[in-house]
């Protein structure tokens, strides 16, 4: 092909490259710089607001400062939101896909019903679910139609917290988490490579035991005790999100299952595999890339979950807070732009820890093809 055409091709792409470079990478850099300043307060919205560089002060304040308590609870909430959304949406989506994989009559109808919540906006979902979860109504009175007592659960305003831990001991908790990840990962690889499993299990056990025995010697993040945990008020929001996204994972898995040839399934059945055995040993390992994509996409969604919480509990409910909502309120309601930028960067860093490896691996896959 002629060189002239190559130039044209590149020039066609150029505007998009420039836009992405500025609007994605430039802006991330800019937000990072803003998070190191003291931009905020009375003159924040002026034409040329005063911004002084103060280093990592905003981050220190968020993690250890007196006023950062709300943010710390939001961060803990976000972890529980993510974990439970992942478990719920992937688990239920998988079950739905396996049911529909039997090709029941009316499959198209069921598929449509399970997937329709995905087409709604979070604002619509939030508005409807707020009414579903109203006290003395909605979900709470459903059991009465089957002859049971109504539920007394205050879905969105309960202030009960379970699985609490002291934020003072954040370092200790963080080491426990790392140890748990290493140990679980180790057990998962034990069958394929015992050598690698050992490299994961031993440091995991040592770190966990070390943190347990010498935990008192670790530096404290705060001066005083501060308890955080899983707010039961967030269960309603998690239910709504799972309702919205389980159909999506169902569609992903269904596409994967349909891609498995019928011959393979017939052969497995002839060899005496049960349905459960077929899924466990053949279908699920084959759709593992789908599980990974689903984990990435759902984590990304749970990290930016803002609209649903905004619509369900409004901006003023501390129990169901989320850093994404906190960022909006800090920036555009309290005009504390620098601290809002710091929250945004923390969200971004959490997202980047699993998105960058995913991007690198999909890039390598494309290269080798």
């Amino acid at each position, binding site marked *: 092909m002629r060189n*002239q055409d*190559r130039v*044209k*091709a*590149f020039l*066609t*792409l150029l505007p998009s490259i420039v836009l*992405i470079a500025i*609007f*994605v990478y430039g*802006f991330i850099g*800019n*937000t990072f710089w803003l998070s190191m300043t003291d931009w905020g307060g009375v003159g924040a919205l002026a034409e040329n607001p005063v911004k002084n560089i103060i280093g990592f002060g905003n981050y220190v304040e968020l993690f250890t400062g007196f006023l950062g308590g709300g943010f710390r609870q939001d961060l803990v909430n976000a972890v529980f939101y993510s974990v439970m959304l992942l478990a719920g949406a992937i688990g239920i989506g998988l079950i739905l896909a396996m*049911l*529909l994989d*039997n090709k*029941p009559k009316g499959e198209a*109808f069921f598929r*449509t*019903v399970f997937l*329709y919540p995905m*087409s*709604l*906006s*979070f*604002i*619509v979902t939030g*508005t*409807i679910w707020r*009414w*579903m979860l*109203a006290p*003395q*109504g*909605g979900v709470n*009175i459903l059991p009465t*139609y089957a002859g049971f007592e109504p539920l007394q659960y205050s879905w969105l305003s309960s202030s009960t917290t379970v699985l609490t831990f002291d934020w003072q001991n954040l370092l200790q908790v963080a080491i426990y988490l790392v140890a748990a990840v290493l140990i679980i990962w180790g057990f998962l690889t034990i069958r394929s490579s015992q050598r690698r499993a050992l490299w994961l299990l031993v440091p995991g056990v040592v770190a966990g035991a070390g943190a347990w025995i010498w935990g008192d010697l670790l530096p404290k993040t705060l001066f005083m005790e501060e308890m955080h945990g899983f707010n039961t008020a967030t269960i309603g929001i998690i239910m709504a999100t799972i*309702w919205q996204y389980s159909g999506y994972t169902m569609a992903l898995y269904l*596409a994967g299952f349909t891609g498995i040839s019928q011959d393979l399934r017939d052969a497995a059945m002839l060899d005496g595999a049960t349905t459960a055995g077929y899924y466990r040993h053949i279908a699920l390992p084959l759709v593992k890339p*789908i599980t990974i*994509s689903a984990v*990435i996409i759902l984590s990304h969604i749970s*990290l*930016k979950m*803002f609209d649903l919480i905004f*619509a369900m509990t409004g901006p003023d409910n501390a129990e169901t807070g989320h850093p*994404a909502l906190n*960022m*909006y309120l800090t920036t555009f309601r309290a005009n504390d*732009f620098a601290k*809002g*930028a710091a*929250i945004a*960067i923390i*969200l*971004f860093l959490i997202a980047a820890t699993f*998105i960058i490896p995913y*991007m690198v691996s*999909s890039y390598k896959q*494309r290269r080798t093809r």
Partner: protein
Amino acid sequence: MMRKISLSTIALYGVLILLAIGYLLPAYLAVVTALKFPADISLPTSWELPPEVNYASFPEALALLKNNIINSVILVISATALSTLLGSLNGYVFSKWKFPGSEVVFTLFLFGMFIPYQVILIPLFQTLRAMNLYGGLPGLILAHVVYGLPITTLIFRNFYAQIPNSLMESASLDGAGFFSIYTKIILPLSIPGFVVTSLWQFTQVWNEFLWGITLTRHADNPITVGLAQLAGGQAVSWNLPMAGSILAALPVLLIYIVLGRYFIRGLLAGSVKE
């Protein structure tokens, strides 16, 4: 072929029907509440059918949200058209005119799809303000076009990868260049790609909220912001927010029911499955 009715078949259908009812409950509740008179709405009877049907909530909600719906229609049409067209051109270059480093550039593009948008929100707000685009629809359209580029490029790149290169080579031998290959060969073959991409973009733009609330002034708020304000008002009884929710959901819901196949293909494409 006769199917044997066994216990497991009954169990399968039983579970499926129960689950389907569960998934439809929120929609049912929204519809019955929207059809009640405000006086008939009370928590203990929220699941019951309206004693007397009241259709007035829909025109009332429509009147309240009219401005927002017009804004969203303008926004959705222009943002979808622009980002789809750009995505198609980009996908064409990334799949048929690879250059050294194009895979790296493409991966850098894709990353833009997965960032939490909070991380670009403040500079975006400032930039639009500096460009005099803050507050109105053009700024919002620009944001949707730019941040829609990763996904539209991805869908078209995967779509064009299925078009055989030999087709391009023979056209090239006939003297066709970069643009004439695009307009004469690629574009006519891309109709399904355009359908999938525009459905995806339509859904995303119509349902978006964060930019709508931070980047536009009241007069230019899209439908999601209008609905949030309608539902957030204290004095409003529940029939209006429910009718508003149904109105806000209807366009995408209709697309999903009528063009479900393409909608699902868009969903799957959005998961970076190649």
